[in-house]
């Protein structure tokens, strides 16, 4: 896989999804970056913004298997990962593993916060380990494997907010914003007419190997030691007991800061962003662009922040403002 091939593929994927999805260019790019970085994405937005359509379009562009799981409170882990069922085969009865919807390249976990923590944890284990264990037997998931979970930020009744440990397993948390008037007009034009956009398959049939090479290439992107140091300072600054956590906003509103996974996500995401912008090295700008989706769900605010309507993005903004680049 050459650099040019990567960039060509990346651009085509973007373009294909943009055929269907109006606006959300940044969200599309970051989902692709997360995909090639080997991470999973949590999409947060009110209903009707096209989250599900976005994920479907992506899976179509990837040309990979796609499964959607609608999370409800009565959803069981076995409904996701699969279960052993008794089956008769040539007069002989035996338990056979019935694979759940998690066995797909692209899995859409729609409204993930509506399922019970037990079910959520089954998915999140699969996300992290890329395998599931049923009745003592481990089953390897598809590769590449990406979970795109969605959650509704407003309808919180009857929901089970994801625990912090499980949130940490998402590479990015992307906020899907309502479309701008021009975008909305374009959406109407595309969806209410007779001609609708069709997403073409970009990746070949056996795309697993290709995606693997692209993921490897992304990790080869160069990052200067000063930028690595900057990422470390940033992550450290989000911790209320950190050296730079002395910042009043962090100390005042943050209960738990970002984990090392946050730093990993920043660097990998920055590398993906650099590649997407036709560069082979990470710049400070890449870091600043990636730090919000990478840390947003990893910083846990305290009660005071909730009471004062302080968001994690505001805290990250303060940290970015105060952490020196050199």
């Amino acid at each position, binding site marked *: 896989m050459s650099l040019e091939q990567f960039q060509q593929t990346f651009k085509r994927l973007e373009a294909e999804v943009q055929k269907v999805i109006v606006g959300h260019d940044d969200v599309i790019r970051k989902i692709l970056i997360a995909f090639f970085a080997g991470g999973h994405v949590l999409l947060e937005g009110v209903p009707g913004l096209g989250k599900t359509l976005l994920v479907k379009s992506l899976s179509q562009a990837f040309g990979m298997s796609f499964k959607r799981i609608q999370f409800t409170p009565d959803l069981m882990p076995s409904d996701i990962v699969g279960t052993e069922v008794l089956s008769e085969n040539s007069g002989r009865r035996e338990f056979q593993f019935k694979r759940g919807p998690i066995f797909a390249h692209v899995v859409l976990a729609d409204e993930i916060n509506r399922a019970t923590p037990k079910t959520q944890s089954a998915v999140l284990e699969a996300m992290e380990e890329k395998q599931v264990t049923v009745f003592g037997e481990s089953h390897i998931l598809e590769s590449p494997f990406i979970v795109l979970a969605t959650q509704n930020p407003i309808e919180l009744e009857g929901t089970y907010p994801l625990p912090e440990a499980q949130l940490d397993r998402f590479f990015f948390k992307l906020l899907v914003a309502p479309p701008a008037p021009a975008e909305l007009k374009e959406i109407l034009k595309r969806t209410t007419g007779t001609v609708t956009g069709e997403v073409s398959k970009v990746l070949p049939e056996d795309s697993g190997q290709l995606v693997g090479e692209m993921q490897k290439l992304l990790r080869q992107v160069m990052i200067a030691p*000063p930028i690595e140091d900057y990422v470390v300072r940033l992550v450290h600054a989000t911790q209320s007991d950190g050296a730079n956590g002395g910042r009043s906003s962090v100390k005042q509103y943050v209960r738990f800061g970002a984990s090392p996974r946050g730093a990993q996500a920043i660097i990998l995401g920055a590398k993906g962003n650099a590649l997407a912008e036709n560069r082979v090295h990470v710049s400070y700008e890449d870091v600043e662009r990636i730090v919000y989706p990478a840390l947003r769900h990893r910083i846990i605010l305290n009660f005071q922040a909730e009471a004062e309507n302080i968001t994690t993005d505001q805290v990250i903004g303060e940290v970015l403002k105060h952490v020196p680049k050199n």
Partner: protein
Amino acid sequence: MRDSRPSSHEGPENLVLRLVAQLSRHVLWDSLLICVPPAAAMMYVVVVLFRFAWLTQLAALLTAVFVLALFAITVFLRRHPLIPTIRGTARLVDERSGARDHFLTLATIDPANQPASFLMRLRQQTAVFLERVELKRDFPYRFKRSAYWSLALSLAAAILIHALVPMAYSARHSANPQERLRDIAQKMAAKPHLRPIAKELEALATKLDDPKISPDEKRSLAQKIEQKIEEQSKKEEQKDDRNMLGDASSALSGVEKQQQLSSGQDQQKQQQKGGGGIQSNVPQDGQGENKQSQGGSGESKGESSAQLGQEKMDQGKSAQPNPKEQGQDKNQGGDAKNNQNQPDPNQPSKDPSKEKTGKTEGGSKDGAGKQQASAEPPPQGGPPADRFYKSGEGKEGLGPKGYVTVQLPEDIVADTKGEGRPTKESKNNRARTQIPVSNVPLPAHVPNAPTEKQQVPIEYRGILR
């Protein structure tokens, strides 16, 4: 791939390295420009202190070395944290050229751990930005404001020292010539051929401190050494040595003057003790002593008296001094010859010891208002207006000499008229008489001289008009 085209790919890294070197030089210049003026000022202070003998040669040398060491340490400490790093410099180049951390990445990554294709691509991308940077144009040296401040403050300090040290030196040495002699002796001791003179100066300084040695003796010693110094000075070829000998000579001259002054004061004291009494033919408390000045010329005494009178005036004392002073002034200011020529026939002569006692007693009793006054007749010969000038005044204003006017007690006045010792009754009945008495020599009395109209005294002119 990197090795295949090394020359074309070394540009960006070299640019950063060259900029690091250039900025390091800038930092060095900054440090020097800030630190050199204070160091120079301190060195100047050391030189000035050495010149004025506040520091010995060794101390000056050590201080100079210390200043230089301090300067070097300060420059190092100031420069060290400001030396630009490759990271910082690369970022500067990135900012200047608009590159997105291309130079930073290229300057800081380890090429060995990077894929060759990526490295080559990075170099190619960076080379595009290379043309946008020109070191001399984009990173010129600029004088910092701190350098100007340092220069101005150091200059001010040097000027201040330049003005203050000589003042302090002169104040110190004018107060104590022995110290000056010792300093000069110390300087001379450093030169082998001047050591004998240095020793003599040292000895003289020691003798000057000794109160047992008379001022005349000290003066003569100083004169002898001065002569030697003059002889030595003629032989000297080096300018510094000549200057040093000149300093010593001037110091000795100062010592001589000082000793001369103190010698004069001693003589005066002796005169006052021995015979310098109130020059009056008026008996003191009926003792009828005729006290005459003894020893010393009348002129010199008059001078010293005038000096004292001047000092008193300067001190804000009234023009009418206390009776004791009046007596002394009169006595000292009077011409000895004149006094001898005008003996008071009413006063029996006394032996000198009595005179001395009488003077002392008279002095002690003066406070009671029993004054001794000269029995001279009132001045009649001179122009009358002269006698009404205030003490020290003349026609031309304040004059070098002054006179005092005393109001004599009536019993003394009576005595001067030959009435003998006054009784209580006579005291009550007598009218008070004010006799102007002057220590200014009066012109000879001409009996039939035409009387001139007496002018109104100066102090009343304004009132009468």
